[in-house]
């Protein structure tokens, strides 16, 4: 190859006789496709390393030494290259490869899920021979075999393209499926008794180019030509992965990942992918319910709304509370904020359940995007939960950046995470002391290294020395057994690092939209504090209201007359079960607005209003970067369930106010006026950003201030509790998803092997865990990923909920573990 002039920023290639300009380093297969020439392929995937195995993409390439068949997925464009994708040799090669693939491929099309959207079918028709000359017996395997609870494998259909195994190993880091045996006997399989229990297994079904991998929730449900689809945003967690929602006959049947370069790259966690099943559950609320003689009975909207209005009318605003809101679309959140703060006049609104971070930690610090965090050569500091458990698609992005792009990852986490094996440094501070560790890290950057939070100085110094380039802090609540203040203090310490940006790791659905729309005490829509006022509201509360914990305490003392549960389950999610119970019991009237009844609804709601699901309303969603994307309606709500914003409007109307909301568009128009940071969110901008979304920047919220609190030392007999979320838990939505419900592991208490050995018990023995607040029975386990001195119990696990042990007013939770 001759030297290329420095001025030229493109590469000239002759493609089928026409000169095209390609990008330097671009793969030939991509350059051709961008210029309208599709080269058939199976093993190539734009988000995974090319392997050049299937040989389908062979084309004749001449780089100066005559034409030769080359795999175009492996060849970067070269200046002066001549490519012929239609030559006789190319066509013969394509015929040949397809014939080879089909000789052992079973004639399953009529019964195969993939039929109609099958690359093998499509490419055989477009590029392959008309007939097969194979007359021998094809390969046979037992078909299909379940390789996990959700994924089935049909080895007869498999064309051994290596996509699924490459995904499992390279992208997810869960090498649980692998090629076995050799040559013509090669098959994909798992290790005996070790299923493909990866949180990301569903992606392999989507990328499989044939029907070898099928997903239990979709098997035999529909043909692609029966499906209607729309692009939307996943609602399961706050990453806001881009999806298409596919439905048939008014029922959502499948979600597929869409490649948004800024967000998820087409990948979804299984929870995001299969979570739609909950929306089709028989338990969906289809009519309002009212509690009569202790039982919830169905009723009509008129009497239900009347009852709600009666409860709300003429109540002192300070005695009204709204807990929840992260489930809602941005528009519904705005409507409810307007109702609560602008009509009812209460500032007691909190979308978080005491299990997140104060709004200043999200809106008061400089923000970074996922792409910024993953920019090659930068540093990410994780002060928060395990992304693999909480924010699956973010985990995959971070993992890619660390493994492939030279990102340095420093973890300041209470236990090992799904990223620990690839992190440059994993530092585990004593629970309740991550702020001290963060401060020590910053000190070490300036040259002053000292021990902190149980982590030795040299480890901190090594971590500090590895920081290169701008830093992104992924910030979230790692453990609900310690107060949020510690994490906020850590953030304040880290905000001194040069060029730092924060990527929020608050996990619950549209919680960031909720904060943007003012669903926190002291906040108004548009990331402005209460005192800034709001022109569109009739009134604005003058006093800063209560957060969830304070509301529950007030309710427990009999000081809350109406408590609205806006898609929330305090009994399960508030990290203080005792407080939640007393609060719900002590509240006057409890009004729940829900899709599915949860523990709080069933035990304490006086009135339940059925809400429409994310696939049943038009709206927008704001992810953890502050990126707004569409979440379109695809099916109609069941029964008489309604959009949340409609419910708010109805209530307002009956209270004599007009919210002025007619449609999601009209709400967005008002938001754009009310909130300067949302001014760019025009319908055109949203339409243009259907895939990438529209990033909203700017905020008038001030940076958080240090709490000034210190964590008490624990006594020698007790362990410090770490309560972290697992991807599969006892959550209502998950348990209503048939395929995922059984995946939640039962509760257990995990100790470091040294602490485990001191107890002298076998793994699996049921022990008693005692805190100052309560006690809990759980089987015992050991794992070196839990540091000595800590005890890890997952939140909301089937069996027992760890929140029985936690006191929300305490900064940490100390526990004793004893024989049962």
């Amino acid at each position: 190859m001759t030297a290329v002039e420095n001025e030229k920023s493109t590469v000239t290639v002759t493609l089928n006789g026409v000169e095209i300009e390609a990008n330097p380093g671009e793969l030939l297969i991509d350059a051709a496709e961008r210029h309208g020439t599709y080269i058939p392929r199976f093993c190539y995937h734009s988000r995974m390393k090319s392997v050049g195995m299937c040989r389908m993409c062979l084309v004749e390439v001449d780089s100066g030494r005559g034409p030769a068949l080359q795999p175009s997925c492996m060849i970067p464009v070269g200046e002066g290259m001549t490519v012929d994708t239609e030559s006789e040799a190319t066509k013969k090669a394509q015929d040949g490869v397809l014939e080879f693939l089909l000789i052992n491929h079973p004639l399953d099309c009529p019964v195969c899920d993939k039929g109609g959207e099958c690359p093998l079918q499509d490419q055989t028709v477009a590029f392959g021979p008309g007939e097969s000359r194979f007359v021998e017996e094809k390969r046979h395997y037992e078909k299909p075999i379940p390789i996990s609870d959700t994924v089935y494998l049909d080895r007869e259909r498999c064309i051994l393209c290596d996509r699924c195994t490459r995904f499992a190993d390279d992208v997810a880091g869960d090498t649980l499926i692998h090629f076995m045996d050799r040559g013509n006997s090669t098959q994909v399989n798992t290790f005996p008794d070790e299923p493909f229990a990866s949180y990301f297994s569903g992606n392999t079904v989507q990328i499989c180019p044939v029907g070898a991998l099928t997903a239990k929730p979709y098997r035999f449900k529909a043909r692609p030509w029966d499906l209607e689809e729309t692009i939307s945003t996943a609602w399961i967690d706050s990453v806001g992965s881009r999806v298409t929602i596919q439905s048939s006959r008014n029922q959502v049947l499948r979600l597929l990942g869409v490649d948004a370069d800024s967000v998820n790259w087409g990948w979804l966690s299984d929870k995001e992918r299969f979570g739609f099943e909950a929306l089709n559950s028989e338990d969906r609320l289809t009519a309002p319910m009212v509690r009569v003689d202790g039982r919830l009975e169905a009723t009509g909207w008129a009497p239900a709304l009347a009852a709600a209005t009666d409860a709300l009318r003429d109540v002192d605003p300070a005695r009204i509370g709204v807990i929840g809101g992260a489930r809602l679309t941005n528009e519904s959140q705005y409507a409810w904020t307007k109702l609560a703060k602008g009509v009812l006049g209460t500032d007691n609104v909190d979308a978080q359940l005491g299990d997140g971070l104060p709004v200043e930690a999200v809106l008061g610090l400089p923000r970074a995007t996922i792409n910024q965090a993953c920019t090659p050569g930068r540093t990410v500091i994780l002060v928060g939960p395990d992304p693999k458990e909480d924010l699956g698609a973010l985990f995959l992005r971070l993992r890619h950046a660390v493994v492939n792009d030279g990102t340095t990852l420093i973890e300041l986490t209470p236990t090992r995470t799904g990223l620990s094996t690839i992190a440059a440094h994993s530092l585990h501070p004593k629970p309740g002391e991550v702020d001290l560790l963060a401060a020590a890290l910053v000190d070490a950057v300036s040259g002053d290294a000292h021990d902190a939070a149980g982590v030795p100085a040299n480890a901190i110094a090594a971590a500090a020395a590895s920081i290169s380039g701008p830093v992104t802090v992924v910030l979230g609540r790692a453990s609900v057994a310690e107060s949020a203040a510690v994490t906020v203090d850590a953030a304040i310490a880290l905000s001194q690092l040069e060029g730092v940006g924060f990527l929020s790791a608050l996990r619950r659905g549209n919680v960031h939209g909720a904060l943007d729309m003012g669903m926190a005490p002291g906040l108004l829509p548009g990331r402005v504090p209460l005192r800034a006022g709001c022109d569109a509201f009739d009134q604005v509360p003058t006093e800063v209201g209560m957060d969830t914990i304070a509301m529950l305490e007030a309710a427990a003392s009999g000081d809350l007359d109406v408590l609205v549960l806006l898609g929330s389950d305090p009994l399960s999610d508030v990290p203080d079960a005792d407080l939640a119970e007393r609060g719900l019991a002590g509240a006057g009237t409890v009004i729940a607005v829900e899709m599915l009844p949860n523990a709080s609804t069933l035990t304490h709601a006086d009135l339940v209003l059925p809400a429409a699901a994310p696939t049943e309303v038009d709206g927008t969603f704001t992810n953890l970067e502050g990126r707004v994307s569409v979440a379109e309606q695809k099916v109609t709500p069941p029964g008489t369930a309604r959009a949340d914003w409609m419910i708010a409007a109805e209530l307002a109307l009956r209270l004599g106010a007009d919210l002025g909301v007619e449609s999601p568009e009209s709400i967005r128009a008002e938001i754009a006026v009310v909130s300067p940071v949302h001014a760019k969110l025009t319908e055109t901008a949203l339409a243009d950003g259907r895939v990438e979304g529209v990033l909203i920047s700017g905020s008038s919220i001030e940076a958080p201030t240090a709490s000034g609190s210190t964590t008490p030392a624990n006594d020698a007999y007790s362990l410090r509790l770490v309560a972290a979320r697992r991807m599969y838990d006892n959550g209502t939505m998950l348990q209503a998803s048939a395929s995922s419900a059984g995946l939640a592991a039962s509760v257990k208490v995990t100790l470091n092997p040294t602490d485990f050995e001191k107890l002298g018990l076998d793994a699996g023995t049921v022990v008693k865990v005692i805190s100052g607040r309560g006690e809990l029975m759980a089987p015992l386990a050991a794992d070196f990923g839990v540091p000595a001195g800590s005890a890890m119990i997952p939140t909301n696990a089937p069996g027992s909920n760890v929140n029985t042990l936690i006191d929300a007013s305490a900064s940490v939770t100390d526990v004793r573990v004893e024989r049962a």
Partner: protein
Amino acid sequence: MSYFTAENLETAHEIISRYPRKKSALIPLLHLAQEQEGWVTDNAMRQIAELADTTPAEVKGTGSFYEMFKFHPVGAYMINVCTNLACQLLGGEELLAHAEESLGIKAGGTTADGMFTIEDVECIAACTEAPCLQVNYRYKLRLTADDLDQLIDDIRNGRATDIPEHGTLGLVRQHIPAGAGAGIVAPEQATERPVWLARNDAAAEGREG
């Protein structure tokens, strides 16, 4: 997961130390596992996965690529008869047929008493001595049908003392005494130019000067 005996575990660690990356020891560890039990068990693969920092699926995926590893019990004596071209030309297939007849099993099978397994294998690099076979990878060359019968008889009656148990490879292991080695490290730690290449500089300077 524990499979290896204490002694074999020590050997395993020594083997791992001779590679810049742990995973390179995967095949040698599978051989070690097979030597211990005569075949590769699931537990062996689980422990190898731990030792090599990978998953059991990958251990089995790699191991099953290679014919020598058996994932089910085999006979104490594995008779591999070569039938590739050079041996076929001089009666290799007939030798295999004779073995099948003498032992009453087909190639791939094991005798009921667990003594013998027969396999039909590819070229074992003794082509000038065709027809030939290996018993537990020890060569027996230029065999007639009678020679084969004699061999089977010798094995049955304990006279084949030159043939170790299935899974045993070379009877001598490499050992690098402590301090004698140049030092085996991961590639990231060996990025300096080897010191003796400096001799090239001196010569180059000498030529220039």
